[in-house]
């Protein structure tokens, strides 16, 4: 049994390590200062970078997080702290279903809801799609972390005459906060790498643009565009983009480690 486990673990880890080193090898050579500061160049011209896509990804994630994270946290609180009612069971069921919906479907949803009425691709639509994508992850992690908080803490707080809502906010949520922050960062890291929901929402942009009602470049879409091109030069850029994405995920995970080691996190 143990050897089976070890075998499975190896099978799981080896591809990850392989991807990491392969991407690093292939991407690092075309990574330079320009990559982070310059705009993409048309084919045929040397150099150029992805600064618009890097900034674009940050803006899109910001937009998504701005509404996806609070909605996710509040929904998680509702499902965990007010469980038992029919309504909360329905909400829990819906978020579970939502988490299983392929991200491309969420992209189509945002396309129908925002792109079609606005009659153009926009950062807004992309951010919306990423936000929807984050909601079930954030909801679930919030719910699970809140449920880990011992019931006796809630009782202790209520017994002091602290209201139910304040108890949730000041005691329960705070006790679970390091776990919830971890989950949120991981949800962000995941959303940062999503391509499908952005293809027909924020689309892509070869130029510098920070307008929310205009198409916006993002790292994954840029990688996608470079990767399906016939040019070696652009393939190398795609690898470099992939390397940057992986590094972002890696750094986020490192941050998670540091955050979860904060001063009073002993309990959960």
């Amino acid at each position: 049994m143990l050897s089976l486990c070890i075998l499975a673990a190896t099978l799981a880890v080896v591809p990850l390590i392989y991807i990491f080193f392969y991407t690093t090898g292939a991407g690092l050579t075309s990574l330079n200062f320009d990559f982070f500061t310059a705009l993409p160049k048309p084919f045929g011209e040397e150099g150029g970078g992805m600064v618009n896509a890097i900034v674009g990804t940050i803006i899109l994630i910001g937009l998504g997080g701005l509404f996806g994270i609070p909605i996710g946290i509040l929904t998680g609180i509702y499902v965990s702290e007010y469980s038992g009612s029919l309504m909360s069971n329905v909400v829990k069921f819906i978020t579970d279903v939502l988490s299983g919906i392929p991200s491309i479907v969420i992209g189509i949803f945002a396309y129908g809801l925002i792109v079609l009425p606005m009659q153009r691709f926009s950062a807004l639509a992309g951010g919306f799609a990423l936000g929807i994508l984050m909601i079930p992850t954030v909801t679930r992690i919030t719910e699970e972390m809140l449920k880990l908080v011992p019931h006796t803490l809630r009782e202790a707080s209520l017994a002091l005459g602290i209201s139910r809502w304040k108890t949730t906010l000041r005691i329960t949520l705070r006790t679970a906060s390091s776990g919830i922050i971890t989950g949120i960062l991981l949800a962000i890291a995941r959303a940062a790498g999503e391509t499908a929901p952005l293809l027909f929402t924020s689309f892509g942009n070869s130029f510098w643009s920070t307008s929310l009602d205009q198409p916006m470049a993002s790292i994954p879409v840029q990688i996608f565009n470079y990767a399906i091109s016939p040019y070696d030069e652009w393939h190398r850029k795609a690898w470099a983009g992939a390397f940057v994405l992986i590094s972002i995920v890696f750094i986020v995970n490192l941050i998670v480690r540091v955050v979860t080691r904060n001063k009073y996190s002993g309990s959960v």
Partner: protein
Amino acid sequence: MQEVLINTDIVAEENIPDKSKKGFVALSTEGLTVTFDSRPAISDVNISFLKNKVTSIIGPSGCGKSTLLRSFNYMHDLIPKSEVTGKITVLGKNINEYDSVGLRKKVGMVFQKPNPFPTLSVFENVIAGLKYTGNNKKSELEEICENVLKLSGLWDEVKDRLKVSALALSGGQQQRLCIARTLAVSPDIILMDEPTSALDPISTSKIEESIFHLKQNYTLIIVTHNMQQAARISDYTAYMYLGKLIELASTRKIFTSPSEKLTEEYITGKFG
């Protein structure tokens, strides 16, 4: 001693002849029944607790001691399938006249396992009940913090460590912190559910000592599984068995000449 015995009879017989003596009673119940999922955990309990006295509730595990205690501060509200019927009078008013926040400010509770708030410092733990209900005057909070930590006998041990996490304290210190936290909201009645059962003997004796001082200003109702403890700390002792109140009398009477046979059997260790 004579006066105590008179009070005992008042409490035990449940017939307060002189209405003016009602002031002695901090909390009382009439026909109190609590059911979980329609199964009664305690039934038809009539009991009174006198002001500024310590009353212990003893009885075998599962007899309903915690259930009784938790009906005094609406703790059963948190349990979906529970039902509380009968009359409870708290500080002269029907319990229905209090909302849960108001009631819990009058009736504090200390739990079996120390449960300080893990993300808060010692100081923040003590003042949590005040701060999160709207009192933000720093100097006032600091003064209250010092006072209640002194009352719970913890001040000397933590006065230089008020900023550290409450989890850095030992189990016994944590429980005294929880007592201080309860005192900070200045309740009139303090419920304690086996407050020392998770603690070592030294911590236990420290808590018993502070209980002794606390009764000057508070009414204490203490559930304990430990008969020696009941004998040491309480003025009155109630014996419960199978969800019923069997006997309530002065502690001396319960332990020397109980009226009920069931009490005697329990006290003498025939079962339980």
